[in-house]
């Protein structure tokens, strides 16, 4: 079973804030981390490999320092990693990102399963997974919470939707995006960490993956950000005071008045 996992390095959004006065991002102390959902994707790939054998290849597209997340992937147990990095990839929206990743996946070659996270913490779009699947012409199942069964190219999955879970049957090759419920990621072993330190990370640029210049980075991105600003600061909050009974009465009255209940 050949499994490809797409992971992204993202700024730790807990620390990304906007300065309401200057309307600029304040990046003080922002570190880069593996996108949290992608760790579940990676864990699931490694578990599958441990169960039925195979190979786990991890791809990321990003600036040179994104190699860090690939080292973490090696430490967790990935077999091969590739960094897709080129100045021409910069400014990619989801369409250009998924094109670039799909070209990288084609270069890796044979695969049965591609696993992505449900969404990233910076882009927050959840679009890259389904768009890669479309580019590669394979089916996609999003929000996977459990792989029930996988045998002879047939795969049975559970996915989470608004009001419950769908039970899905499909075939490989397949792309799936996973949610947190799917597993409990492992802590890298000491041996893994040692291995990750030594490994040389292969870097592929646009020509290595045969990407067309018009379809990558800023030129390949139909969308454009025109403004970035701070979210509306909270409504004027009011603290309700008094004895519990008083508070409860006040609250219910206010909610009734506002036609909320």
């Amino acid at each position, binding site marked *: 079973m050949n499994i490809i996992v797409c992971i992204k390095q993202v*700024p730790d959004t807990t620390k990304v804030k906007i300065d309401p006065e200057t309307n600029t991002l304040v990046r003080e102390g*922002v570190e880069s981390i593996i996108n949290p959902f992608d760790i579940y994707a990676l864990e699931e790939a490694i578990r599958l490999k441990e169960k039925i054998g195979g190979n786990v290849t991890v791809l990321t597209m990003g600036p040179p320092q994104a190699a860090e997340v690939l080292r973490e992937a090696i430490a967790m147990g990935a077999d091969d990693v590739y960094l897709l990095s080129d100045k021409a990839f910069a400014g990619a929206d989801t369409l250009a990102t998924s094109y670039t990743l799909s070209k990288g996946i084609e270069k890796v070659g044979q695969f049965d399963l591609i696993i992505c996270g449900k969404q990233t913490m*910076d882009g927050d779009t959840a679009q890259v997974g389904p*768009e890669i699947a479309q580019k590669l012409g394979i089916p996609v199942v999003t929000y996977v919470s459990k792989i029930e069964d996988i045998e002879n190219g047939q795969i049975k999955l559970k996915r989470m939707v608004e009001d419950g879970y769908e039970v*899905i049957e499909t075939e490989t090759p397949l792309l799936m995006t996973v949610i947190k419920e799917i597993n409990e990621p492992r802590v890298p072993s000491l041996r893994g960490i040692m291995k990750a330190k030594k490994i040389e990370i292969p870097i592929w640029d646009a020509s290595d993956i045969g990407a067309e210049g018009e379809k990558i980075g800023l030129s390949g991105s139909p969308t454009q950000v025109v403004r970035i600003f701070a*979210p509306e600061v909270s409504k004027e909050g009011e603290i309700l005071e008094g004895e519990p009974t008083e508070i409860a009465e006040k609250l*219910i009255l206010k909610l009734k008045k506002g036609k909320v209940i």
Partner: protein
Amino acid sequence: MSIKIDLSKCTGCKLCVKACIYSAIDVVEKKAYINNNCTLCGACVSACKYEAISISKKKKTAFDEGDYEGVWVFAEQKQGKLAGVASELLGEGRRLADELGVKLSAILLGEKINGLGKELIFYGADKVYIVDSPILKDRLDETHADVLVQLIREHKPEIFLAGATSFGRSLIPRVAATLETGLTADCTGLAIDKENKFLLQTRPAFGGNIMATIICPNKRPQMATVRPKVMKRAQRDDTRSGEIIEETILNPISSRVKLLGFIEELSDKVNLEEAEIIVAGGRGLGKADNFKLIHEMASILGAAVGASRAAVDAEWISYAHQVGQTGKTVCPKLYIACGISGAVQHLAGMQTSDYIVAINKDPDAPIFDVANYGIVGDLFEIIPVITTKLKEINGG
């Protein structure tokens, strides 16, 4: 195509350095320089007070604007019932269409759904395109995407909106990727740029810490998924009339993905995305058993039950209830947070709710920053009283 700094305008003020989350700008001898980390995100361009930074992009227009006209909304349905977001999209779509002076169309796909066509007209559509076919019985991405692509290629709408539901967010990227056009995810605000007739699509990014407005200038249609519950529902008007067009699809594809079954979450009302009211509990509840306080209040209000990650991680309640960055994004009319501190990741999932009530014993808990009504106190004392009062009102 590149980023440029006009050094004659640059004063070395470092505003751009602060704005860049990728550490891609260095200031050397009072002049800013872009390094290899740059992702061309544009944050520095808006940060620079001196207009010294610009990102240039080759203009290429791959479409004839005149060819693309009209606003389309995808009228999501499940087993013959329209999703709540459909009437919200019609409300919003109507506004945009009127502003542009064009028609509003609803797209309805499924099996045995013809009866819903009229509904969509009552909610504001001028035209309804219906494809009624057994291949569209289950909500599967491949078949639906194929049909949508064919319809869009034939009729060429300038704007296409769908709900940012689990179905919309899986299906629509497939459509956009096939059409090689832009798609903005999970928008919470839409407007028209009058001058250029562009759709201005505003959405939260970076876990809700930042809002970004996005355009799609050179490709059509301009596509967006829209967060449920944010837009105002259209008013139903039974006297409206419109045109219902039944389309047939040539050579439909079959789906490689099959739906075997559906497991409803029966334990609690878990459909957080559709709920008007959510009562949520966090670590402050102390133990699993205490969630019954939350369930009680929720059942009286007809509310769904939400939870913070801390409560889910402690296994007091299932993950399906988790609200926040790694859980669900909700936007109810009323969100009551009990014993939840209000970590940014939690806020990311609920701060667009219309009304927020917070019950927490720590007056400095960040949840109070977003709450309309805050109650500082012990939830074990307060919740039972609120529940009893609500019961009294309902009873009398």
